[in-house]
Structures are given as C-alpha cells and as structure tokens.
C-alpha cells in the first residue's frame, strides 16, 4: 500500500511531505525511493530525514533518516543475499502513538526521483 507518493522530477534542493499517523497498535512503515537514474549513477546524492511531532503546534523533531552519498548501488548483494535494485529504502517501527510525520528529502544534484511511504 503506497499511502503517499511524491515525485519531484529534476528537483534540486529539498522537498517535504507531511502525514498523520493515527493511534493504533505498534507497527512499522517504510519509505522507498523511485527513480530511473539513481540506481546506476554513482554521482548522485540523497538525504532523507523523517521528523515527528505528537501534538499540533509542537516543533517537529528528528525521528530517523539516512544519508546516501553515492547512487549506483544497483546489483549489490545485501541482507539475506538479496540483490538490491539500488533504490534506497528506510524504515522504522513505532509504538503506535498518534503523531504527524514530516518527510524531508534533500537533493544536491537534480535528478528524477519519487518517494513512497508505506505502513506495514
């Protein structure tokens, strides 16, 4: 289930999207990049930061994120021997408390990319 998808073709700089997560049982979610060029271009960089807040009006604070300093990772062998498609995935679990998340992508060099957010 791709709950949110943003596509920023040739974007440079940063983009962000926010989403409310309702209270419920502990669960996990993942964010995955979509891009036709990132997996094979080692010069590309991508920074993803996920922030959260628990009450309206509060400042967003860091939750988790990652920095990817080189694209071109398609074909690498990773966990469980799986061959990576080179598109970064990041995920985390949480305790089920309701929150609003803000996903910020920073892209120094413009390229075609998108992002999906999926609750598991």
């Amino acid at each position, binding site marked *: 289930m791709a709950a949110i998808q943003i596509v920023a073709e040739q974007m440079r700089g940063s983009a962000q999207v926010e989403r409310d997560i309702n209270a419920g049982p*502990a669960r*996990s*979610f993942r964010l995955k990049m979509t891009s036709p060029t990132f997996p094979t271009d080692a010069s590309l960089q991508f920074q993803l930061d996920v922030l959260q807040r628990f009450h309206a009006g509060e400042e967003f*604070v860091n939750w988790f994120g990652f920095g990817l300093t080189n694209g071109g990772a398609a074909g*690498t062998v990773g*966990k*469980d021997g799986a061959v990576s498609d080179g598109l*970064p995935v990041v*995920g985390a679990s949480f305790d089920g408390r309701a929150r609003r998340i803000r996903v910020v992508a920073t892209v120094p060099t413009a390229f075609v990319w998108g992002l999906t957010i999926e609750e598991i």
Partner: protein
Amino acid sequence: MAWLAIEHEGAFGTPVSSVQITLTPRVGDLIVVGSFGFVDTVDLTIADDAGHTWSQANPQHVRAGQDVGESWYTRATVSQLITITVTKSGAAQYLTVLGSVFRGAYNGTILGDTDASTGGAGPPTSPAVTPVAGGELIWAATLDAVTAVGSGYLKGADDGDTDWSEYRFLAPGDVENKIATFVGGAYHVLIATFRGDPERPQYSDIPKVILQKPHRLEA
C-alpha cells in the same frame, strides 16, 4: 538495584551510508546502541548531536561474507532528545541501528561481559555471558529474520525489517551464565551485560501505596 527500560528505537536503510535514530534520555541514563552493516569489511562509527563520548560494548564482529555487527554505550549527559547517527564505510549498503535507553546503571564501570555469534539456521542463539555482580542488564541484538524474542526476554528495539534487540534484568545475586535467544532463522547476535546501580532500590523496597475505598459521605 533496579533497572527501568525507558525507550527503544530502531531503523534500517538500504542501500545507505548512514542511519539515524532519536532517543530521549535523562542525565545518567544508559544508552545502548547496536548496529549491523553490510558487507563484512566495513567499519561502523557512531556519533550523536549532543556530543556524547561513546564506548564500545561489542567490538566489531564479522559474519564472514555478509556483515559486521558492533555495539556501543554511553551515559547520557543531557536530558533531551538526541539524534544518533551510525555511519558505515565502503559503498552504500544495508545498515540497521537498534537503540535503547535504560535507567538504573551503576555509577562506575558499567560494561561487563560481551560476546557474539553467527549461524546459518535459527534459532538465533548467543554465546553465554557471565554476570559479575548480579542485578545486571542483559542486552542482545540480532540481525536477520527475527519474529519473536527468546524465553525470559523483553522486546527492545525493532527496525521494522525483522532485526530486533531484547533485554532482561537479572535479580540481585544472580550470577549464573546467561544466553540470549530469539525466534528466527540465520542470524548474527550480539550480547552484552551492564551492571546495575546497587543503590537503586528494588521495586519491592519502595513503600507501598495503600489504596483505600473512599468514605461515603453521609447526608
């Protein structure tokens, strides 16, 4: 002595060069972070935005042909949300970070015994570690297809990709060797013991609050 588990946070990324998590300790809390990164030749480093000095708990441990595991700990010097970043060397690849905050650590040498193991089939099982004083925190983390904690353990951090940590608090005087197990398949397990504060009372030492039925107000 008594421990409290305050918070657990896990996250993973692939293929990435670093992964961040956030934790909110109070001054004096023990923060334990385990990490696994691919491939088996990479180095892992940890830092946080509050400038803590991190000590190694589990030294770098290699699962040949696959990944490395390592853990660190520190005593919180701030009472605020901190962002912890683990960075791997080499090409972007799979990286997971499992962090926990515990209250009740000994105000001296905290780290006790550590060990690690790998296996091609489950259940994930650590080598035995030896408590030295009783009342220790036993912390373990494992990489791969975990579905449940082992007997006697509570769930710690979960990265959302079947990599978990777990923990248990030993009773005072319990210095029997301990192992950690998980329910899962092929594995890479880290285990470490941390000494508890002997000055911190057991829950049973805390005066009980007796709840009484409210008196009925008579007209």
